[in-house]
């Protein structure tokens, strides 16, 4: 039987994903080599570098059997994959943030709210529990600019350190979720290639646990 195709997320998680694959003894990939080609064979497996939001698409449709992707991407995706393991790295939080001098920052929730976000599905789910009249404005980048320009009252965005929020005079109002990298598996591959994907899952889990240990020590 042929090897597996594994989708890796370009962007902030990419180097850590390559590092974990190396620690797990699955493949030693040089992240820089993906600058020259997007698909690299290592042993019997093939690794492809795709946009993070495309990882669940590749995995659901069977283009790849496995993928590594942030939980924040899965919140927005309606793709059906098995989410097999929490890989621990890429920790960040999805938070609601508003300008420091706003009523919202003072703890007063207005009747209606314009929310700029790259996470419209999460935004609707987050606000569904609160009876607020919200307008979701979907942006594709630099969400922090929306309150500064008057485009929106607040933002729902990912933050790892909080520095970008602070630099743009935004303060956190509430946390909507915590995200880490996950291993996802195609439905049929989990059944028809159980041995192969199982071995990958076990190795990645072990490597992730060892990292956690090393970090705690």
């Amino acid at each position: 039987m042929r090897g597996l195709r594994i989708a890796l997320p370009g962007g902030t998680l990419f180097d850590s994903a390559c590092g974990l694959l190396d620690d797990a003894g699955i493949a030693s990939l040089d992240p820089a080599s993906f600058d020259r080609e997007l698909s690299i064979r290592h042993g019997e497996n093939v690794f492809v570098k795709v946009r993070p939001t495309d990882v669940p698409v590749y995995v659901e449709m069977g283009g790849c059997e496995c993928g590594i992707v942030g939980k924040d991407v899965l919140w927005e995706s309606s793709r059906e994959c098995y989410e097999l393991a929490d890989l621990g790295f890429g920790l960040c939080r999805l938070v609601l943030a508003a300008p420091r001098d706003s009523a919202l920052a003072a703890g007063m929730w207005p009747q209606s709210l314009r929310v700029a976000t790259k996470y419209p599905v999460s935004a609707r789910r987050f606000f569904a529990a609160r009876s607020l009249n919200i307008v979701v404005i979907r942006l594709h980048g630099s969400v922090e600019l929306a309150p500064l320009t008057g485009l929106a009252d607040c933002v729902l965005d990912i933050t790892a350190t909080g520095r970008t929020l602070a630099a743009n005079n935004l303060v956190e109002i509430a946390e909507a979720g915590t995200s880490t990298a996950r291993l996802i598996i195609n439905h049929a591959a989990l059944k028809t290639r159980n041995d192969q994907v199982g071995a990958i899952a076990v190795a990645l889990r072990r490597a992730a646990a060892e990292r956690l240990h090393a970090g705690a020590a």
Partner: protein
Amino acid sequence: MTGLDALPPGASVRGRADGFTDYLVGPAARRRQLTDRIIETFEAWGYGFMVTPVIEPLDTIAAGVGGAQQSALFRFMDSDGSLLALVGERTVSVARVVATQLHGGPFPLRLCYAGSILRNQALNAGRRRESLQAGCELVGADGLAADAECIALAAAALERGGVEHIQVDVGHADFVPGLLDSAGLDATAREKVLAALARRDLVAVETALEGTDAADAERRLLLAFPTLRGGREILDTAAGGLRGARPQRALQELAQLWDLLEAHAITDRVHLDLGAVRDWDYYTGPTFEVFSVDSGFPLGSGGRYDTLLSRFGTPLPATGFVLHVDRCHDSIERRDVVPAAPVVLRVSWERDAHAGALELTRGLRRKGVACACDLVAGGDGDVHVSAAGARWSHLGNGERGSIDAAVAALVPGAP
């Protein structure tokens, strides 16, 4: 100028709606043959072919399937204001027919169908919104022999259709909910775990179990979820330390089912899969999914649904399955080198030989040879009729003779 800029703004591109497919000559014929082979297999096992409408009242559908499935339907209004929907599956339609027209039996009823199902899925997702499904329902039989028959038939039909490397995963709808009961979880934790499993989010299953005092044996099983697969031996492994009667009974049923599948001689293609994630509201007993390494999607699925018919006022046990014909077709088309198009002879003719040419085509078609007759005189077809009716020549070798001789010469396998 070509390209996107060439279109005036607002110009309509006369295309298909996204998620719908045109099958052109060739693939369309092969897809129909695949469907025919599947249905012929169903009929060879004694399942009677029936047809249900592509539209059902929303109330009828709502009696059968849950909210998530209902929200994915194409819905519209009937002339009296009541709501209609295009069917998103056909088991509910068959259940309606059984409850309203076939409730007198004789049981067990063996029924099969094939038809379009429609789902209003997101645009540009690469998913089909119309697809062809063929299925069987075995109604009024409550024994495991009925479940085994359905599993064996699903595999037989797919193999007859030309799908290779089939693998059937058999699970039990009562195992996981039973496990959660006997693990001593409270209702909230139970719902959390089931919801996470339904989302296939095994990380969330772990998180949900961490905060509970689930008993060790059950927790171990739930965490081992994706690896609870294998032959009959995994049933013994799973049974170790289990106390609850419900999961034990599910395991016993699977053991009996395995023996029946062995009698059907298909256990070389079957895995028991205790971690199978299925719709727990709908299925009540053994469930199964069929896979092939040639496809990233399940090619078929089914199981026992003993409570569905009672929702239509006719409490009857039932089991059945559906095959996703389009996914099977995809996996076959991707695998095979494109087969040569079937041979269609072209019959051409000269001057006053039109009637003779038509007579030749009738003779050829009676013998099962596909042929098309030129509509105007002249041309150089595969077969050329040159004199008044009774003579023909086969281009290339210059043979001449009677139409009977022509038919005899052209029909494959004729003496």
